[in-house]
């Protein structure tokens, strides 16, 4: 609209020195192939003929619904506590901040199954905290849908925190300072100035966390167990189907893939264009 004459884009002369150097293009394409070939293999070997039959079973939809619900709840929970945590790490000075930052990212390197055991030891019926939840409130988290949400949050939240903290560090703190000189409290400045400023980073972090939560397996099955309709998410259903019926496992994986691609592509168009 603003470009005046409707010249085709390709006709624009290429600025000199802007071609893609082979030294970057070759490894980039290799990397892309490395990521895509396994997915293509899944498509090639998918049991297309029996697919409709596999996908109409109520268990599949039950597991998918549970997966989507739990991943979304885990993302919401991560946002509520993760964004303030990222702000704390990026905008305040305190002793041992480096250590805290390292600890926050620990679930990234911890094998998820170990994370699940750690959650059991902390929040289980006999856990360090869990025994009081059980004794005082009668709350027992293992083997429940809430347990799935917590396990996924544990694994996914670091992605959100890292992403938001990075965005906060890149954002100019002078906007907040300006808000403060105009009389805004630090919280108001965070809510009215910082948050809109870092919204794309928050969105990107939330999408990462959601995707990680959707695929979560180890911590979930260890902490929440596996019961259809209550704690059996898609990755668990896929793993167990793989034991007996690899064709069904591939079909289930395709559903999970299709849904995640649809959601991620949709979100990308809506929110993440500015990111």
């Amino acid at each position, binding site marked *: 609209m603003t470009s005046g004459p409707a010249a085709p884009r390709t006709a624009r002369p290429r600025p000199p020195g802007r071609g893609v150097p082979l030294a970057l293009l070759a490894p980039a394409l290799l990397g892309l192939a490395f990521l895509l070939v396994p997915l293509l293999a899944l498509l090639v070997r998918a049991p297309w003929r029996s697919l409709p039959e596999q996908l109409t079973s109520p268990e599949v939809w039950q597991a998918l619904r549970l997966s989507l619900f739990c991943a979304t709840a885990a993302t919401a929970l991560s946002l509520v506590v993760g964004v303030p945590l990222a702000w704390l790490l990026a905008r305040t000075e305190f002793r041992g901040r480096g250590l805290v930052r390292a600890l926050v990212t620990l679930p990234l390197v911890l094998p998820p199954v170990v994370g699940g055991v750690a959650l059991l030891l902390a929040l289980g019926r*006999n856990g360090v905290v869990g025994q009081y939840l059980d004794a005082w409130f009668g709350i027992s988290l293992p083997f429940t849908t809430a347990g799935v949400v917590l396990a996924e949050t544990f694994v996914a939240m670091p992605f959100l925190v890292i992403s938001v903290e990075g965005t906060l560090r890149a954002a100019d703190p002078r906007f907040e300072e300006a808000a403060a000189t105009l009389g805004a409290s630090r919280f108001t400045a965070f809510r009215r100035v910082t948050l809109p400023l870092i919204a794309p980073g928050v969105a990107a972090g939330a999408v990462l966390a959601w995707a990680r939560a959707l695929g979560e397996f180890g911590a979930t*099955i260890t902490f929440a*167990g*596996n019961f259809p309709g209550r704690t*059996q998410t898609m990755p*668990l259903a896929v793993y167990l189907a793989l*034991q007996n019926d690899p064709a069904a496992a591939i079909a289930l994986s395709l559903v999970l893939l299709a849904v995640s691609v649809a959601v991620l592509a949709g979100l990308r168009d809506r929110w993440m264009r500015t990111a």
Partner: protein
Amino acid sequence: MIRSAHRTRRSRRAAGAAAVVVLALGGCSASGTDSAGDAPSGTLTVFAAASLKESFTALGERFEKEHPGTEVTFNFGGSDALAAGITNGAPADVFAAASTRTMRLVTDAGDTAGEPSTFARNRLEIATVPGNPHRIGSLRDLAAPGLKVVLCDRAVPCGAAARTALTADGVDLTPVSYEQDVKSALTKVALREADAAVVYRTDVRAAGDKVQGVQFPESAEAVNAYPIARLDNAPNPAAAKAFVALVRSPEGRAVLSEAGFSAP
């Protein structure tokens, strides 16, 4: 000077090793056709059911001692996952499964060398938290309301066996979780997150005082046979043959029965 001394020492050691190998081969009379050229060496990869962890680890150490120069690496896991790995080309030498059904997945794919043979049997047992506070005495007691019971998923052998025993007894049991393998089911009880689990006798024994075992008569309805086979594309066939022979030898049987397995 130094060099030749070194060489002598090394050759002496090699001679010693060869002597041990010859002795060991003499012991494994089951594979009498072995020539000295087939003496096991190198890395042996064994895919074994999770319930074999303790006994096979012990047998692996013996194997390495009896055949110097060999190194046994194990991949313990759910039999079905292991079978899927093998039929998809995982480079393993030996497969020991917790059920004939899972072994059949591999034989049907034509991935075994020769017929699998049963080397042990396992029975189910109820694992309860130490002291058995809920006074579980039978399979029927597991259906008590409020009791948190975990079973293995039907997809893995211990779950299929538990289902058979429960059906035989007409017990309608809703567990809190269908675990992905027998060790995870046991862990839930050892951590006291579940009150009871139906697992193998061998797992109860391996867990020591972390759980308490309760035997039940219906376990006779669901006895698991453990087959072992060498694999067709084994990278190390000589060592594979020797390891299978060790597992099936009286020595191997003694280790397995120590762990709670019954004779085949």
